[in-house]
């Protein structure tokens, strides 16, 4: 992701009209696309756009969701009810639909797609966080903090948050995989990154029209998306194992 652009053998946007629709070869390892651009270079450059944006979007969504969930669990009673029912209402809209709606309202761009994904992830993260935070809320150290008259901000920030982060981080890494796919989907639908960006979803979308000329063009970016999704899922599993057995 960070070194990708330096490793790329060609300029990702350099068009070579004579070398269009080439299958993988020694010169172009993964072949070329409809304008004769090197697919490998485009993939390597696109990694930055796709993965970085997905991670940022997920982090934003997680941050917002974690705060909402923890505060909701801390308040309890009617406040909790009000917050969680609102979250439920937002959750009842499928996340892709919600993201589409937001992007359509804000205009097509990578940044707006990022915001849309962050927003789409917030309710889910709030839900997960609340369930963890509710268990923490019952712990006596939270009671002790309340009994000694700590402020609400201190209880949420210093007593509760540090104890909910472990499962949240695990949940987050798994969600990055979803974010990558959601990003690709948005770009595929023409609502995220705009040509000539080398975002993976966009690459799949463009390659779709030329599938009969070169199946490689659509294969490589799809494979990259799948691999990253699986990779983050495995990372999440690994983190869960590493973070949870804490005594």
């Amino acid at each position: 992701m960070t070194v990708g652009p330096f490793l790329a053998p060609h300029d990702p946007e350099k068009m070579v009209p004579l070398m269009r629709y080439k299958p993988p070869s020694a010169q172009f390892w993964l072949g070329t696309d409809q304008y004769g651009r090197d697919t490998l270079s485009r993939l390597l450059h696109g990694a930055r756009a796709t993965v970085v944006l997905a991670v940022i979007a997920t982090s934003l969504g997680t941050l917002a969701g974690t705060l909402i969930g923890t505060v909701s669990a801390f308040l309890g009673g009617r406040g909790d009810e009000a917050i969680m029912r609102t979250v439920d209402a937002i959750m009842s809209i499928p996340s892709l639909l919600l993201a589409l709606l937001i992007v359509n309202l804000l205009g097509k761009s990578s940044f707006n797609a990022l915001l849309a994904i962050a927003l789409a992830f917030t309710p889910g993260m709030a839900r997960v966080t609340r369930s963890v935070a509710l268990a923490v809320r019952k712990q006596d150290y939270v009671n002790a903090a309340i009994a000694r008259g700590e402020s609400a901000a201190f209880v949420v920030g210093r007593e509760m948050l540090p104890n909910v982060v472990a499962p949240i981080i695990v949940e987050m890494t798994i969600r990055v995989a979803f974010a990558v796919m959601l990003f690709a989907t948005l770009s595929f639908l023409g609502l995220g990154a705009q040509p000539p960006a080398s975002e993976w979803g966009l690459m799949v979308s463009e390659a779709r029209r030329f599938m009969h000329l070169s199946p490689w063009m659509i294969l490589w970016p799809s494979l990259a998306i799948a691999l990253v999704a699986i990779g983050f899922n495995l990372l999440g599993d690994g983190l869960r194992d590493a973070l949870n057995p804490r005594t």
Partner: protein
Amino acid sequence: MTAPVLDVLNYTLAYAGGAVKALDAVALAIAKGEVLGLVGESGSGKTSLAWAIMRHLPASAREAGEIRLTGRNLLTAAPAEIEAMRGRRIGMVFQDPSTSLNPTLSLGEQLAETLVRHRGLTRAQAWREGEARLARVGLKVSQDMMRRYPHEASGGEKQRVVIATAFACEPELLIFDEPTTALDVITARQILDLFRALQAETGVASLYISHDLALVSQIATRVAVIHRGRIVEHGAIGEVFSCPADAYTQRLLAAVPRPDHRLLASQPAESPRSLVEVDKVSVHYGRKPFLAKLFGRNDTRFTGNRDISLAIRPGEILGVVGESGSGKSTLAKAMTGLNRFDGEIRFDGRRIDGLADMDRAYRRDVQIIFQHPDSSLNPRQRVREILSRPLALYGEPGAKADAGTIDALLEQVRLPADYADRYPHQLSGGEKQRVAIARAFASRPRLVICDEITSALDVSVQAAVIELLVDLQKRFGAAYLFITHDLNLVRQIAHRIAVMYRGDLVDLVDVETLPDSVLHPYTRALLDAVPAPAA
């Protein structure tokens, strides 16, 4: 002497990867009709031994020695043989009846299943036999009880069903793993009486595992004391308890609370007025349903406390006893502002009507220590940070929570100063509770509420913590509201005792006049049920 039913010979158990032996050269024998009490603190290997006899050990277990059931070495027995033996020849009763029964099967089905499996009865026969068995363990409406599900029975009733199941197949050996620890004092007493009657009737060999010396002294014929996987002392009950030979047994016996051995002789200084007065405080759980209020329906909320009134004088230790669910902790939480309450609390003459009246001064003067030190200390904070919070909140302005103050606080509870940089999980249970005590005393409170603070600790650790509390009381003169279910313990340290029962305060008596006072029937029952201290 007849051949023993169970003969454990030089049995050693270790777990792969673990350096410590869970059990080290254990040798025991139980003859028919005999009850062997196995006493030890948590982590001493009591339960490991029970599972080893049941042949239900994890794959990582490494064993040596022999466990013989009427001469047959179980270590070399085939899995099929073990399966036929479990339940049929060896029965087991677990600590917590609410987790040892399957919540999705009726009590009768669980009992009948055992009979069908091990005694080859048909379903109808097993059901009838089950009813008879339940009647024998003293369950009045046994037909009705057979059809009930575990959540429809009380803890004592459930444990009776488990005992009925264990006795149902007339096994040769029964293992009891702390069968009364999860029960209330009075229920535990009834279960013990039942156990004794059934034991005498069937003459089964029993291994009775417990951490409670007093209890073992009442039911066992012989006793073995286990410490870190080793049997340190083994002999007839009278001998071991009257003249213990091993140093560990002596320590253990000395730590058992005795009501006649007062730790705090002095009465609190006479004071014209009370430090805190609790006046008709009631606590209800749950929200008042909006619709019910609209239609003027009766309040159906659960009542935690009903019109509690009591007063604590400065420097007095008021013990609060009662079974679980009697509202002891509810009262503690109301007094510390964790529960909403109706009624009023007067602290040092100042009226507290609700949470809004609990200002910083009140919170500084009233501190609470919780039951489980594991959950009352934030696992993500170091001891230093935990102790510095009350200093930052209540300390005089400008007084920094520096290392010296933290050291002094740790010193007060007899912990080394370098513990300040540890996390709670690096401390033992007793040390954690000491940190919690240090935190409560950091603000120099005038009232400390101790909510079952020793019930999660072993008896020797409990003795040390109590000694520390008494010492702190002498130094700072704080009043304690000491909540416990252990009547023997509270009679050692309290000046007065309040008895709670189902949310009501039923008795409030002076500890010295307790034996001869006119008491509520519940208090009387409680006093009679408490096992007399060992020896």
